[in-house]
């Protein structure tokens, strides 16, 4: 047994390059899996940070008279049974002058799933609650505190006013420049006495505001909400696709390495090794290689993750509750997934070989590759299989068309998978047909005719590698477009929602005075007052007739001015953008995509809206995208909303001139109207930070996507190199017939790059189909709204060039050898034939 195994492995001693290629393939495939895990982890971290940044996760109670709450009032609310929690918010100044936001929370009453409460470290609650208390802080705020990462733990930095912070605890999920501590410690630092900045509650926990108080719902402020969930879903899809690509690559790498040893297997059988022990030895070899490759891949995946993102280790730590640095304690599915990529690929690739090894015909010594005579049959089987998969995809698509949004997520994923499978199966028959057609066309040019015929012979060996290349390229393109498109959508959305640099959040009754005061300030260009209210969508009048509906919707009032309208995207209008905005100012409404999809509405339809004391029928002028909003929304000009529905103001954006002195304006405004320090927020800063946080995720997603392509290229290279040796045998006779070497070399290069180009060209529509599946099927199935489909021609060109480049590289090596071979060697080759 050992001898059989060592004989089998001796193949790699003679061909060390092949072993290296194989292990490399296995290694990179499972490293890819690990990398995707890391991306997902980081992405989740980004959501949490961005969510916390937008301060969206909590409903907020305020007194109508704008005065701060006292502890006694908070206790009275608790004793009335309201699930509220106290919060202190203020600013501290570090010794280098940086202003940091200080938030004091009560972890005993704050809802469990809040980002601030969640940014839990492994520290105990008792340490958080009792002296000397704790300061939770994200690592990127350390610099402002004058502390290095190494010394951060339990450090107690001194602030500009001489007070010291409670010992630091790092919490990477917290928003930047924010300190979180127990409300008792925060009260000491802020010297707030018995006063409270705000009283908060989990979103929706309060049905209505208690008497004398106003309730500000969490969604009032801009929130990426479902937008991030959607990105996360797409990342999950990326993870699954990367896993499939990994499987293909491993199979391609191994299939060829094992095939080359069919001769050796036959010899062993002739020498008396039983079929069973041969299969056993091969299985052992596969297992050994698989384990080495998988473990190396998983380990380096973590390394890769750390390399791509300095904080990813900390993220993994906070996600999996592991003390990274001392010990990496990843969840079981991480290891199982990594092993499954390697071993699954090995099993797929190996089972065919094992099956053949078991049934090896000892007498067919001379017909080593006799099985290839059946290739034609294989091609027709592939065509049938491909047609079947495509049929499934089409059927699923038709079925999905009749599903309501929010259903059919699994179907959506299955559809994309079926599409991929169909394309992969159709590729070899397609290439065979193409070659046949071209051969027919080139029958008057003998050399090209020969090259095409030769390609047909090579096709059985090439097809697996080409299938892997197709799937990798298409996935790469699909994911690239998805991530790129998502990024653009996110930036657009930020522009749309945060168009003004300064936002004012004041008690509702003060807006009129503030507005009048600001109107006289020369540095204020525009005042973008927003209003909010709830209403019921009573009925809709469409060309087909009237129907009653009765669903609750949000009314949102905006001020259509020159700073806002250019940034507000519209999906459908009755005529054009400018007439839509003109109608809007005159009292027409816009509705969001969610409402349009749910109620099947289009521009021109009329809606009857019902609110306390108001019943209005209004015309839809346009439909706009509202990424991340789970509910239907009707958009109206602020003055119209005030006049018709008596909606209270909810915030005011201030567009300022370039030379405006923001600090002075802020100070004057706050003092004059006696507003809280957080009444004015600088959205430019929020926008910048939000963009920064997400760019990080986009960057590593792109990096990993590039890695997917690299792996596919490597697999192609590996499979082509394994058959490089035989190329010389086939070229030698042509040389002997008098074809010049240069022409032969060119032919050789053209053959492979042509095949790769054809595959690459096929991958482009497939990649677009995948992107479309992700943004228009899977996203709609999951959330009820579609992401816009963006295409990036530059990226496609790079992908195509990569495919051709890899093919050229793979062909170059044997060509070079052929070029350098002495005529004598070529003659000897010819003689051997």
């Amino acid at each position: 047994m050992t001898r059989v195994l060592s004989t089998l492995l001796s193949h790699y001693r003679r061909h060390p390059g092949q072993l290296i290629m194989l292990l490399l393939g296995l290694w990179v495939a499972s490293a890819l899996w690990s990398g995707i895990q890391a991306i997902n982890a980081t992405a989740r971290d980004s959501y949490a940070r961005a969510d916390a940044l937008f301060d969206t996760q909590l409903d907020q109670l305020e007194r109508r008279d704008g005065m701060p709450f006292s502890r006694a009032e908070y206790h009275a609310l608790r004793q009335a049974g309201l699930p509220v929690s106290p919060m202190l918010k203020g600013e501290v100044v570090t010794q280098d002058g940086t202003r940091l936001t200080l938030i004091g929370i009560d972890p005993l009453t704050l809802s469990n799933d809040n980002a601030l409460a969640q940014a839990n470290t492994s520290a105990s609650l008792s340490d958080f609650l009792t002296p000397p208390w704790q300061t939770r802080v994200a690592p990127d705020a350390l610099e402002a505190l004058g502390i290095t990462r190494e010394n951060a733990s339990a450090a107690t930095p001194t602030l500009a006013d001489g007070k010291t912070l409670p010992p630091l605890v790092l919490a990477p999920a917290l928003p930047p420049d924010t300190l979180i501590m127990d409300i008792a410690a925060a009260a000491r630092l802020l010297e707030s006495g018995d006063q409270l900045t705000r009283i908060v509650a989990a979103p929706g926990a309060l049905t209505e505001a208690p008497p004398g108080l106003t309730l500000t719902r969490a969604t009032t402020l801009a929130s990426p909400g479902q937008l991030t969930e959607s990105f996360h879903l797409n990342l999950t899809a990326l993870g699954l696709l990367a896993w499939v690509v990994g499987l293909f690559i491993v199979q391609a790498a191994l299939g060829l390495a094992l095939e080359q040893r069919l001769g050796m297997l036959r010899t062993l059988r002739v020498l008396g090794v039983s079929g069973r022990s041969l299969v056993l030895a091969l299985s052992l070899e596969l297992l050994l290689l698989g384990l080495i490759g998988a473990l190396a891949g998983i380990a380096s995946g973590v390394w890769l993750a750390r390399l791509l993102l300095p904080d990813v280790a900390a993220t993994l730590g906070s996600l999996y509750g592991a003390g990274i640095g001392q010990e990496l304690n990843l969840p079981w599915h991480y290891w199982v997934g990594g092993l499954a990529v390697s071993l699954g690929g090995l099993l797929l690739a190996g089972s065919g070989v094992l099956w053949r090894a078991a049934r090896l015909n000892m007498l067919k010594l001379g017909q080593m590759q006799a099985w290839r005579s059946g290739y034609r049959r294989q091609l027709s089987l592939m065509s049938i299989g491909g047609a079947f998969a495509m049929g499934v995809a089409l059927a699923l698509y038709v079925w999905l068309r009749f599903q309501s949004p929010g259903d059919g997520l699994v179907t959506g994923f299955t559809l994309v998978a079926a599409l991929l499978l169909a394309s992969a199966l159709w590729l070899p028959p397609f290439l065979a047909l193409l070659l046949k057609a071209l051969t027919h066309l080139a029958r008057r040019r003998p050399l090209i005719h020969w090259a095409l015929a030769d390609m047909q012979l090579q096709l059985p060996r090439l097809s697996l590698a080409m299938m892997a290349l197709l799937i990798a390229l298409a996935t790469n393109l699909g994911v690239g477009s998805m991530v790129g498109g998502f990024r653009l959508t996110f930036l657009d959305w930020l522009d749309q929602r945060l168009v003004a640099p300064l936002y004012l959040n004041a008690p509702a009754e003060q807006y009129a005075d503030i507005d009048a005061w600001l109107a006289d300030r020369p540095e204020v260009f525009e005042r973008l007052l927003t209003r909010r209210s709830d209403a019921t969508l009573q009925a809709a009048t469409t060309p087909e007739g009237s129907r009653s509906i009765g669903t609750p919707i949000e009314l949102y009032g905006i001020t259509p001015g020159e700073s806002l309208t250019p940034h507000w995207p519209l999906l459908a209008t009755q005529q054009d953008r400018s007439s839509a905005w003109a109608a809007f100012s005159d009292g027409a409404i816009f509705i969001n995509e969610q409402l349009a999809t749910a109620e099947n509405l289009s521009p021109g339809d009329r809606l009857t809206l019902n609110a306390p004391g108001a019943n209005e029928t209004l015309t839809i002028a346009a439909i706009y995208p509202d990424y991340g909003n789970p509910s239907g929304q009707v958009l109206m000009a602020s003055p119209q909303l005030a006049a018709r529905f008596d909606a209270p103001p909810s915030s005011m954006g201030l567009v300022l001139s370039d030379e405006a002195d923001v600090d002075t304006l802020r100070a004057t405004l706050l003092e004059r109207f006696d507003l809280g320090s957080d009444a004015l927020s600088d959205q430019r800063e929020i926008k910048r930070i939000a963009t920064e946080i997400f760019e990080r995720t986009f960057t590593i997603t792109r990096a990993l996507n590039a890695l997917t392509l690299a792996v596919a290229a490597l697999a192609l290279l590996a499979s082509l190199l394994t058959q490089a040796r035989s190329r010389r045998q086939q070229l030698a006779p042509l040389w002997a017939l008098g074809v010049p070497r240069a022409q032969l070399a060119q032919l050789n290069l053209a053959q492979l790059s042509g095949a790769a180009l054809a595959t690459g060209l096929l991958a482009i529509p497939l990649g677009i189909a995948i992107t479309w599946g992700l943004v228009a099927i899977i996203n709609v199935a999951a959330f009820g709204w579609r992401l816009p489909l963006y295409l990036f021609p530059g990226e496609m060109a790079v992908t195509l060039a990569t495919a051709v480049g890899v093919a050229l590289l793979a062909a170059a090596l044997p060509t070079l050898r052929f070029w350098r071979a002495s005529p004598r060697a070529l003659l000897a080759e010819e003689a051997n034939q």
Partner: protein
Amino acid sequence: MSLRLRLTLRLLLIATVALTLFGCDEENQTETNSTGFAGLGQDADGFRHAEPNQPLSFPQEHAAHPDYRIEWWYITANLEDTAGEPVGLQWTLFRQALMPPSKRPAPTPWAADQLWMAHMAISQGEQHQVAERFGRSHSQAPLNTPQDSQAGVMISPFYAWLDDWQLKANEEADSSDFNHLTLTAYSGEGASRFGYRLELTAEGPLVLHGEQGFSQKAANGQGSMYYSQPFWQINGEVTINGKTKPVSGRGWLDREWSSQLLDARQSGWDWFSIHLDDGHKLMAFQLRGGSAQNADYRSGTWITPQGDATPLATNDITLTPLATSAVAGRNVPTQWRLEIPSVGIDINIEAPHANRWMTTSVPYWEGEVVVNDRASGEPLGEGYLEMTGY
């Protein structure tokens, strides 16, 4: 996944640290742990200790004893609705000192040296609904009105609360009265709302357990201060699944405080409170493990209908588990035999419904039991059973 993990982590944190009283460190729940069930056997340095010969004086003892580490106000009740269907309920206010008196922070706003936890449960048939709340207070902060603190206990008039979960003296009763109380607690909204509003009337005196209120809990002398009011007549209404119905029945209130309740080697307890139909009341508990031979420590009180108490010692009581039920992945004894020959007791105690697992941050079993005569099988009464450390 991550959210789940974080939630779990958070619950674990609250459980292990915030309330060492019932800290739920799974690993520590074995027989040989070093701190007993939920850390109740922890070293109590710096705290005042429960000792014999500390005379109890009322109504002061109804208030919190912040110099002791742990304390509770514990009500269980066996009720019936108008259709005669049994309803069980529990309301508990736990107090835990975060640090010994010498290490407490100044009582600045929000600063806490006491952590509070409240549990409530309603059971009927297979239904068992549970809720939990947390709060904070400072023992040296002024406490003149309930609005001075999120949780606390005041005595004239009596008022124990955490948020809107309250046990307080009837408004018409005089300020030192402890015989007429109102108990209110609700949780959830709409169809999932549950809770109760009950009037409690004492039909007998307070009962001091052990040695004038000192209840020994281990052979080496550790123990707690412990008294009960076992004579509550209860009327009121309960809400289950959003539906409200009138109920009436009997209740039992336990007051206990201590700084080290268990010996470090004790792993948990089985505690019984029983209302016999002839008017007698019986409290009995056993602490598993702990003595030199790792034998169980048992104690109890036999109470006449007039409220005269006879303490029972380990040798007076025989407790035998007869059958276990699989609850929440554990095997919990839900049928017992209790023998106390000195007062002529040989009874079977059975939980009609095993699913009374308290899915609180520190899980335990607590539910109604029925009592039958061992020999004749004749029903003798009802009560409550609490089991920890399983």
